[in-house]
């Protein structure tokens, strides 16, 4: 996550003697949020609703780590200056959030302030800011009464002083996080689309990955009304989270509502199969969407038109590359690598097999303005998620060990220039950088 780069920058600024601002930050942090909120009496319905909303918010993605009690934290976010760890959010009074009032909880969730200081924006509070008071109360009830308390101590962040000072985060928060306001549907909006907007822009925090960020690493748009940059695709670590908008070949243009619902609940549809960190999102979060909420999200995404970026091109299948391969002509750069390594599953026609091996022809990920995902998948392979509806898991093996940088660049270029696909060219040097980011045993 690139926001972490910010820490040294802001940390250094701190060293320049802005001591006064530290005091100001502290006062501002303490002033955030509501003083008091009345928590509704807990009951099974409220707690169950909270459980559902916790899944929508995918709190487990960061706060549950395999091998530790659920929601007891401990996920390390590596930053150039050290590690930041997710915290214990079970109701344990000592190690967790058992002593937090509803107002305290609301302050952390929507304002990004906890125990009098600002949180690292790894916590997506700028997105959660729109959560409605009733839903905050349900989330609170679930964490207080639905989650077993875990006496798991938090792991201390290992960022050394003075970089560990938090006051710069206060100013980041005030500058870049939206003013927390409960979601209000715009007048005249379809109520189903409004529900989709609330989930996508809020708890779903889709924009945290799918919306590009600015220099200070704040997302360039928080919601649809901020403009067409919202959910227009962004680089996340070594993957490109594709555009979720409508229009050109690199968007969800030809995905029907049903396709989007199917993707969110199973990780696959006739256009493609999930990969990268979205796989965890499907497993921990979106597979639990109610039918109504899944459709609301689909309708909302289908309404996001105005593509941005260099391409307004729509996709049309082109049979020439398939014909060439079929007639034994593998003279195009990368064709030979493709035939030897990829074609058995993705087929010479690039159409794959529905819900088994994704099609590459017309796949928006292939047509994205950035080939990071293709490079990463070729190097490290991929595995489909297991959900109740899709118990079978399909694997693609890693190719880093058998393809050199030029081979990977060639095959990525072959894929992104065949069957009507079009995307910027990849150079071997770019592949080398991705390879370097892998663990030594994976290279």
């Amino acid at each position, binding site marked *: 996550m690139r926001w972490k780069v910010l820490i040294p920058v802001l940390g250094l600024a701190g060293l320049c003697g802005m001591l006064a601002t530290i005091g100001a930050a502290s006062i501002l942090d303490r002033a955030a949020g509501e003083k008091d909120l009345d928590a509704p009496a807990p009951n099974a319905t409220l707690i169950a609703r909270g459980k559902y909303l916790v899944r929508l918010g995918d709190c487990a993605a960061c706060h549950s780590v395999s091998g530790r009690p659920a929601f007891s934290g401990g996920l390390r976010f590596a930053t150039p200056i050290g590690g930041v760890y997710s915290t214990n959010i079970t109701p344990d009074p000592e190690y967790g959030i058992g002593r937090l009032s509803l107002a305290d909880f609301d302050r952390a969730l929507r304002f990004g302030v906890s125990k009098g200081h600002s949180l690292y924006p790894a916590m997506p509070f700028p997105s959660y800011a729109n959560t409605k008071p009733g839903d905050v109360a349900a989330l609170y009830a679930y964490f207080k009464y639905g989650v077993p308390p875990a006496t798991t101590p938090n792991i201390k962040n290992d960022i050394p002083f003075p970089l560990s000072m938090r006051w710069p985060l206060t100013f980041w928060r005030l500058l870049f996080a939206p003013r927390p306001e409960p979601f209000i549907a715009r007048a005249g909006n379809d109520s189903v689309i409004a529900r989709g907007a609330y989930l996508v822009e809020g708890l779903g925090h889709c924009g945290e990955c799918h919306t590009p960020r600015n220099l200070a690493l704040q997302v360039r748009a928080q919601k649809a009304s901020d403009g067409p940059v919202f959910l227009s695709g962004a680089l996340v670590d070594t993957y490109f989270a594709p555009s979720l908008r409508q229009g050109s070949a690199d968007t969800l243009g030809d995905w029907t509502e049903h396709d989007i619902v199917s993707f969110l609940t199973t990780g696959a549809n006739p256009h493609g199969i999930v990969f990268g960190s979205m796989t965890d999102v499907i497993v921990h979060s979106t597979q639990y969407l109610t039918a109504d909420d899944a459709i609301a999200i689909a309708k909302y995404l289908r309404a996001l038109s105005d593509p941005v970026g260099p391409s307004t091109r729509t996709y049309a299948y082109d049979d020439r590359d398939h014909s060439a391969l079929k007639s034994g002509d593998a003279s195009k750069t990368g064709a030979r690598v493709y035939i030897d390594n990829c074609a*058995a*599953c993705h087929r010479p026609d690039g159409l794959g*097999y*529905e*819900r*088994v*091996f994704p099609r590459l022809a017309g796949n928006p990920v292939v047509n994205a303005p950035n080939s990071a995902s293709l490079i990463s998948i070729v190097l490290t392979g991929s595995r489909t998620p*297991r959900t*109740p*509806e*899709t*118990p*079978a*898991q*399909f694997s693609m*093996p890693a190719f880093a060990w058998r393809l050199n940088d030029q081979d990977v660049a060639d095959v990525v270029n072959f894929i992104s220039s065949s069957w009507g696909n079009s995307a910027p060219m990849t150079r071997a040097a770019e592949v080398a950088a991705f390879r370097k980011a892998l663990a030594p045993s994976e290279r």
Partner: protein
Amino acid sequence: MTIQDYPVSFEELEPHFDHFEKVCGTSGIAGNLRGEIRPGGNPFEGARSDEYPTPPLPPIYAAELFEKATAELGYKSFPQPSANSSIAFTNPYGVRLGPCNLCGFCERFGCFLYSKASPQTTILPILANRPNLEVRTSAYVTRILRDNNGKNATGVLYIDEDGREVEQPTDLVVLSAFQLHNVRLLLLSGIGVPYDPVSGEGIVGKNYAYQMNSVTAAYFGEDVEINPFIGAGAAGLRIIDEFNSDHFDHQIHGFIGGSSIFAGATGGRPIEQMMIPPNAPKWGKEWMTAIRRHYRHSAPIGAQGSVMSYRDRYLSLDPTYTDGHGLPLLRLTFDWHNNEYKMAAFSAARVQEIVRVMKPEQQATLLMRPGDHYDVRIYQSTHTTGGAIIGTNPSNSFINRYSQSWDVSNLFVMGASAFPQNIGYNPTGLLAALAYFSAVKIRASYLKSPGPLVPT
């Protein structure tokens, strides 16, 4: 001969064949759909309730030549049904299989296309997340334990990966350790009376049988592109059933049983599956020349033949050799009988007639002739059967029609160990149908009221 009939009919098993084929995504074409004989399928098969779940795979080239030749001879060839899904297919458990692309590495390899049916591609995915399932790997079961009167299994004893002996108590034992090992575990556990070939008494180990196969290699020469690396396992083969089972009049031939006859290699693996004529050198430059000339241009036409069961062919515990834990190994006492030599010669003659019509440059037949002995070192078939056979009463069988032990009613034995004699087909469909037939009965009756499911 000690052959006997099954205590369960085809009609009773048919729904379970059908279910198993759907679990596997089996590709094929029905030859008898609810009594209607349909072109393109096996006209000899029993009445199926449904079509195969996925369409047949396209024939590999050797199978195409076979199709033409058999048609010329008046036989009705059909795609060999195979548990390779031919399309992306979701089975009744909701598990999705990929489509076979005839990659050439089916036999003896894992399937990267998720089309070759095996537990991990068909059933394990839905069991994986069940809270009431625990799989203990690296557990080497050595004995089924019983109570004092020996009528009830109380658990199994196994050795874990640290060499410790562990007793696992249980209400129900389902023995499914492969045909040979099923028999060994019964003998090691002292369940049932071991078969005695001298007196003919006893039952455990009785009626071991194998298959009697022959193969005719057709060498077509460099103008005919067989390309044996395309296709694999049963996928893409074509087959005829005219000379199997009771599908022809045996009266003048002096034997019973028969063979299914099929064309096309099960793979084209380097070295092991490279075909060269028998007169070519076995090494050196001339060998290489022969490989270059014949590998891509040759095909085997095979006959998979039945083997009857006999009083002197059986399984027992070895008096001399033991495994690493000091437990006796299984001893296999087997050789060919006259009936099978005759059956094999008859089948091979039919194959040779077909191959002649396929017009290769030359052909050569590998066939067991009278005087040739069974040799365990030479791979002939994986299809071993018998030893814990199924039957109508405790004197002729170890298990009843529901695969339940007559002696120990909470012990069920699954596998080809149930077959009273062997068939001229692959055994998996039949053993799976028997297993599902049993499983349905266990759930419907046994669990509600444990005890013998067939009165004695």
